[in-house]
């Protein structure tokens, strides 16, 4: 895992931990957000947070199709790399 990917994942863990009112250590990146009880509409807010942080334009349903932090990290890493290449 590259340093950039690790930073991205840590940032996502921290955001989601805030959403869930947990400490980051209690958020497993492999567990779907819905299993933590994050309701489906609130989960959508994460995509606008990511847009603001990483200056991306994302599909509004991003967090529904990539329901774990690991999955979000993977898809976002690709998008960020594509943007840097462009």
């Amino acid at each position, binding site marked *: 895992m590259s340093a950039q990917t690790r930073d991205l994942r840590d940032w996502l863990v921290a955001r989601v931990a*805030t*959403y*869930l*009112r947990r400490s980051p250590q209690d958020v497993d990146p492999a567990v*779907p957000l*819905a*299993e933590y009880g*994050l*309701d*489906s*509409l*609130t*989960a*959508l*807010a*994460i*995509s*606008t*947070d990511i*847009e*603001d942080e990483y200056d991306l334009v994302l599909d*509004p*349903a991003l967090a*529904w*199709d990539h*329901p774990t932090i690991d999955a979000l990290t993977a898809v976002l890493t690709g998008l960020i790399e594509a943007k840097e290449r462009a």
Partner: protein
Amino acid sequence: MSATPKRADHLEALLGSLSDVDNPVGSAAILDADERAEPLVAGEAVLAAFDLNAELVPPEHGGRFDRVDHLVEVLRSVYRRDPALGLGYAVGSLIAGVAVWTAADTEQAARAARLLLGGGRIAAAFHELAHGNDIAAAEFTATPSDGGFLLSGRKEVIAGIGRASAAVIFARTDPSPGPRSHSLLLVEPVPGEPLPRFTTAGVRGVWLGGVAVDRHPVPESAVLGRVGGGLETVLKAFQVTRTALPAMATGVLDTGLRIAVDHLSTRRLYGGAAIDLPHVRSVLAAAFADLLRAEAFATVAARALHLVPGSASVYSAAVKIEVSRLLLDAMDRLAELLGAHSYLREGPSGLFQKLLRDLAPVGFGHIARATAQLSLLPQLPTLARRSWAVPGPVPVDLLDLDADLPPLRYDRLALHASGRDPLTAGHGALLDSLPPGPVRAAAAADRAELAELARVCAGLPVAELGADARPAHYDLVTRYVLLLVRTACLGVWRHAPPGDFLADPAWPLAALHRCAPGRTTPLPGPVEDALVTELLDRHGGNRSFGGTARPLAS
């Protein structure tokens, strides 16, 4: 307001006068059917002759559903008479239809269109009593089997399901929790065993039923859109119906107001006409202003579906919250004025009690007002950061109700607005564009209100905006929705054609006054006088009390 389609006038004429005792679709016949808890058969015949189902089908599939505002105006003629007729004949198919137009492939859409254009009904089987508006908790299952699915479970309180030839069913296709666990299926004929009828306090002519289904096989081609895409389709497609259904229901207040004026103009109280009493005039003027406010905002939101579909999640929820509240509150105040005559099930004002009962579902049917508030909460911080604090141009195309509209693009509806709210972003520019005078002065305080809302909401922690949000956060939704409505009213007034009552300052002054933060005072005298004069003029000329001031059947 928004050049009425000629076909709306045609339907109005076909339905005829409410007060004509010989009209099979008049008040007496409507009340009679309601007493028997049966549909208004003669009304259904008129709607069939008018080919109302074509209003529910987009032009690319052979129908006349090209504009949401026109659909609303056509159906207002039905809601002006009998909300149960509208619900029982058209609403189920409309709701099922928008899900089809949003998610179906060409062949599925053509099949649904054929069915509707042939006079058939499609039931909207989304609801399960145990889960209410928590639709993601739905338990009705579609289990993969032999290349298709087996359907099992119950759908309850579904309008007209017993008479429908097909159903759009919301079913769980994945046992795990989450937003990708449900799918929509178009199933023909309606599967399962019918459940007994649910009886209700209002819309008594509508057969509310349900089905119990046990391992009913359907082919894979029944799935609308992708497997797991059900919740997304519902949340997008229902932006159309969350806007259109409360908008149609303004027809109920239109007739409620007419019954009140009829009754109070002939009634003698304390030595004079009841309608001359200051309190009576004040309540009537306020109800009239609230009707105009509701229609102005609903029409702007209907236009937004065409012009800025990506933002319609916000405006449709706001319509559900505020238009339904305005209608329910105004009818309650008229009921107080009418007193016993709002309660009698017979006589010239007998229709009022039915309209009052039939209107109630506007607040909880399809989606509850509280659920609509909840859907806006997580959007507030992004809206504040990206639109409220970033001034934009006046969205003239939203506000000029006579301007053309592009086709409705179901594929551009979005789960959330990504912070894009062009109406509020244009608030400052709109205020700057107003001519000097009392309306501009009355609206000035909203600059500070918007700045304050933007400041508070930009910093809200998303974690606190879910279903367990505090009441104080719901209050922010209320303030935002009121600001949206005030902005829409100002814009509609500013862009109304000269000579139209919508260009008269009385109604925006009343609208601003009646939803100003902390309002407690009655309307200023000259504003009230102008509204009552217009109200009585339309009453005498048999024109509608809404934005279009349309001629009504006599």
